[in-house]
């Protein structure tokens, strides 16, 4: 072997070593995940039934169900998304496209980055003081949704800014050169072209929110709700009703937390089954995100 071949051989063996190491680490991570899901399935799968999905909580484990919890999770997520997404996307567009380059903007940016790292329980305390005691929104779906909305707002802003930044500057210049205003450029180009990445960020943020427990306990989630909230429709004009916003709420992780902390073994099985449903809900959200993203990205490649 010539010296240069020896050198190449050594570089290649490093290459192989890294590939092997990467594979090992990935397999370990996957195995841990599989073990967790497997354990959950082993414990909970037998408890899954139509009765479980359609029953209210009960003091008898065999009669207990999660209907108020999964309905609650969906409604809270709805409020969270409606609160955080328009605000977050708007803020990101302002910061990326409109904000002047000065210390005030800089200060806001630093604060947003820091807010993304604040522990969720702090948001819970803040929401308790602000939404429950100050604004008297009650221990309601509205409070819960807004709390989680505040929690994910910085994530939404950061994800959206990243997405907007990935639109190449020459595309913006093409629009401006035709006489477009800033708003026309944002509406017709910047936002549509980054929509795929924006949606990915939204779903990641909502996936985080769906499993949050601590801030919701702080703002007063109930773990025993034996009724459904008011329906979002009504007989009389205007046919939609917002009464449900002020109903007491519970969500899946809180129901699970409640069951896990009971002494009876049967409730632990219930908790595992509820965990499976929560996992399925999260996966469904991600699946929807992937489908939407694929549709948006199909036509756009640089």
């Amino acid at each position: 072997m010539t010296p240069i071949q020896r050198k190449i051989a050594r570089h290649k063996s490093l290459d192989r070593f890294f590939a092997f190491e990467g594979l090992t680490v990935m397999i370990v991570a996957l195995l841990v995940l599989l073990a967790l899901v497997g354990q959950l399935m082993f414990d909970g799968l037998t408890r899954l039934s139509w009765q479980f999905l359609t029953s209210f909580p009960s003091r008898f484990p065999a009669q207990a169900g999660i209907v108020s919890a999964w309905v609650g999770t969906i409604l809270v997520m709805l409020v969270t998304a409606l609160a955080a997404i328009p605000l977050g996307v708007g803020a990101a567009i302002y910061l990326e496209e409109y904000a002047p380059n000065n210390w005030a903007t800089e200060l806001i940016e630093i604060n947003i980055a820091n807010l993304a790292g604040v522990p969720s329980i702090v948001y819970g305390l803040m929401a308790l003081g602000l939404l429950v005691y100050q604004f008297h929104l009650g221990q309601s779906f509205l409070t819960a949704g807004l709390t989680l909305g505040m929690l994910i707002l910085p994530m939404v802003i950061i994800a959206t800014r990243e997405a907007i930044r990935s639109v190449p500057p020459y595309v913006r210049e093409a629009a401006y050169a035709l006489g477009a205003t800033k708003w026309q450029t944002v509406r017709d180009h910047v936002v549509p072209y980054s929509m795929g990445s924006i949606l990915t960020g939204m779903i990641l943020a909502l996936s985080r929110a769906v499993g949050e427990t601590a801030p919701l306990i702080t703002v007063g989630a109930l773990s025993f709700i034996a009724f459904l909230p008011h329906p979002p429709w009504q007989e009389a004009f205007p046919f939609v009703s917002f009464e449900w916003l002020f109903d007491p709420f519970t969500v899946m992780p809180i129901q699970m937390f409640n069951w896990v902390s009971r002494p009876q073994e049967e409730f632990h099985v219930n908790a595992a089954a509820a965990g499976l449903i929560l996992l399925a809900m999260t996966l469904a959200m991600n699946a929807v995100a992937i489908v939407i993203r694929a549709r948006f990205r199909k036509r756009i490649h640089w």
Partner: protein
Amino acid sequence: MKTMDASQTVLKAEARALNFFYGQAQALHAVSLPVYDRCVTALIGPSGCGKTTYLRCLNRMHDLYPGNRYEGEVMLYPDRVNIVGPEVDPIEVRMRIGMVFQKPNPFPKSIYENVAYGLRIRNLSNKRDLDAVVERALREAALWGEVKDRLQASAMNLSGGQQQRLCIARALATSPELLLFDEPTSALDPTATSRIEELVAELKQKVAIVMVTHNMQQAARISDYTAFMYEGRVVEYDRTETIFTNPSVKLTEDYITGRFG
């Protein structure tokens, strides 16, 4: 060779003692240049000489970024408006003056929407009118034959040369009074380049053209007037034949003969 009748010497725009600053750095020093209607004015010079900076003054592109500043004036005729004046809205300037960029930059939308976009932001939405203008612009950009059966296909699937002609069509759709080309062929192969050059020769029948180019043969082939710029100044400006056959400044001659640049 290039014959000039009276109609070719109508002034379309004129820079007068134009200074331009990127923040504190002065990039243009007292640039004075006429642009004649229905003529091609070429800007040549080594990298960093300010030719693109000057071109982007003409449609106020510099206003998109903070800290940029114009001094002096660029008059646009026939209405004698100073288009770099702070009282003039850059959007209005860009609506009158079209631009084609160095790298083809179509929108990732359909071919049709690319050409129609300039009209849409002018609040034109009548389908019949749009169809007519899109066809006219694509014909003028010598692209109609190649794309007429797939107007709804994505512009990103076109070849580089086709994309650049699409960008020309997009600029032509709004009937600009002056068309700016910033090295439009530098990213294209020779075949695509010669098609763009033929197109520019066609287009100057209708519109004034200012073109930045790195390629001196290109300037000699298609322009009527040439300005040689160096370090933010216009060193020499004249009829293209004169610049290339009998330049009066030594620096111009050195650049044209390839002694530097």
